[in-house]
């Protein structure tokens, strides 16, 4: 099992990087949102890996809390996205720039 730790961490880092890249390059708000979820879960993976590695429960508990927060965030975020879409602005993040300058 211990030999797999670097693998899990690399997977976590890769997932995080994919998520971050998605936030930065994708223009569709829904996809950006999904990328954020991806990053959160990458973080969860790293937390659980370290929890197993150190044989403590702290990381697991932390991951549970993150999942709970992420669920709440989804509720709020999706509501916002639905609101934006209903206002007839589309979901292109580059178009949402009324507050520049």
């Amino acid at each position: 099992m211990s030999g797999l730790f670097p693998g899990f961490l690399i997977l976590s880092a890769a997932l995080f990087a994919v998520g971050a890249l998605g936030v930065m390059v994708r223009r569709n708000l829904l996809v950006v949102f999904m990328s954020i979820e991806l990053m959160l879960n990458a973080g969860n993976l790293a937390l659980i890996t370290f929890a197993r590695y150190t044989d403590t429960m702290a990381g697991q508990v932390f991951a549970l809390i993150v999942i709970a927060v992420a669920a709440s965030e989804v509720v709020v975020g999706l509501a916002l996205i639905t609101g934006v879409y209903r206002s007839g602005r589309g979901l292109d993040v580059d178009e949402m720039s009324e507050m520049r300058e």
Partner: protein
Amino acid sequence: MNPNSTLALSAVALGLPTAGFLVNALSAGRLPRRVVSLLGPGVVLGAFVATVVLLVQLLGQPPAARGITVTLWQWLDLSVRSGSGAVAKTGFNANLTVRIDPLSLLMMLVITGVGGLIHVYSVGYMAEDPGYNRFFAYMNLFITSMLVLVMSDSLVFLIIGWAMVAFASYVLIAFWYQRPSAVAAGRKAFITQVIGDVGLVLGTFLIFLNLRGGDGQLLHTVDLQTIFANVGPGPHLHNGLGPMGGGLVTVIGILLFVGAAAKSAQWPLHTWLPDAMEGPTPVSALIHAATMVTAGVYLIARFHPIYQQAPVAGGVVAAVGMGTAVMAAVIGCTQFDIKRVIAYSTMSQIGLMIFAVGVGAYSAGMFQFFTHACFKALLFLAAGNVIHALHDDQDIREMGGLSARMRVTFITFVVGSLALAGIPLFAGWFSKEELLSAGLALGPAVPWLWVIGVCVNVLTSFYIFRVVWIAFRGQPATPRAASAHEAPAVMLVPVVVLAGLASVVGFLNIDFFGFHPLTLFSDFLRPVVGVPAAQAGDGIQALALLAGTVLSLGGLGVAWAVYGRKVISPELVSRRLPWLYQLSLQKFYWDEIYGAALARPGLALAARVRDVTEPRVFDGVIDGVRSGVSGLADDLRSLQTGFLREYALVFFICAVLGLIVLGFRLA
């Protein structure tokens, strides 16, 4: 004397005017006038009754036991207490302790007695005034403040009363706040009072920091009786406030006198008093004749143990008092405002009192205070009747012939004038001759003081009868004067009562120039202030009494010759002695001197700040901050592109950089 009944009575004396003030002030003018007319004078007369009962109790005691201290209110007490609450070690305390002794009782009697009469008078005088309730609130506040001042046995509360008196006088002088001149006069009085407060406070600091007990230890006390008990010479080298006549005690004496001079309108802090005549006439009678201006006399009499240790300070006090007395008397001779003439005579008479307490004749000074309170309040109130009848005209040149139409006012004014002028058998004669006798008692080397005092008396009787003849005799100068009518009864009764007092109170103390068949007053005060050390020979004294009396009558005669018979033209004198006339008419130019020395440089400095410092420094700094912030904001605005993805990029770059830095730190 039962301490409990003393406590209750002094609480009543102090509490009634306070309650009157609070009820009047907090009801914000909603009380009906009839209630205020009863409440305002009622509380002061109630306090007077309590004071009289206290007096009766005090007189029931042997003279040595006439003095009791009670604590009305425990405000601040840093004594160390044991578990059971008993005082283990006395620490600093500043409580409202009240001293009931002959000196404070005398002041209380005058404050509540004469003050009560003036309150009654005000019911008539202020009847038409829209600020009727406000007036009585202020008047009651003044009585409260004055009582705190004279009753307090703690330096802290003495200073509090001292400052409250200044405030109450400020609001009363500026009572008619619609008049710019009244507001300016109030401000002038208040500023002068504050200068005096500084002197008093510095003096008490020095006492507090330096007073040592009999064992040579610092006492750090504000309790007056403790201070006075320890100030004298003792067995220890570092006793009291240093050696007799030492620098420290002299400085303290002079600082206390700065406070006294401001309250009592003595040179060089005297200019506020004539201007204070802008206030309503009852205010002038209460504050600027009977009570507040005599607070300085009281202060020096109360602190006489300190002045006995500081002969130089006492000499300064006496010299300033005599100088002010002469100056004010000279000014009084040429003024045309009836209230200003009386104001200058107040200044002059208080100068004599200050002189007396300065040379150690405390009893004579306080006796002069007592008679003066009666006849000066009388003069002011009688003048108030005249002013009321002439619809606020105060110029004696526009009066004339009033004696026919205002019989009672005329007679009472003349009684007051006779008392003020020191004409035999009226109150002023007894007190002034006793006072001059004290001046003569200083020894044959200084008969000058007596000569100057007699000159003041001559001038006094001249200028006050000048007013009598110009204002009350002759022909009416204006139609208004011709149609003047007598004041209502509520205003006449107090005046008549005061006239009665001014005729008889002198007989309380027939003790001057070798004659002392009746010395009720000085016997009364003796437990507090003792007896003057020096007495002149009886022969010289009798001669001086005769000369002084004849000269006072001479002053009256000159006034009669000049203004009654018109055998001497006043214009002739002013042409012969133009410099003296101008000096007197322009009040010795003190207002001009202070204007040039203090007010104008102050205004110039203020103008400079306004024209230079304000635009360049203050505006410069503020403009700099504004343009700096707005420039920075202009630069930062370009970062706000509105592209979410760009923000995310920046965010990630910063996060990565932060992690790298953190990694290095941990490694």
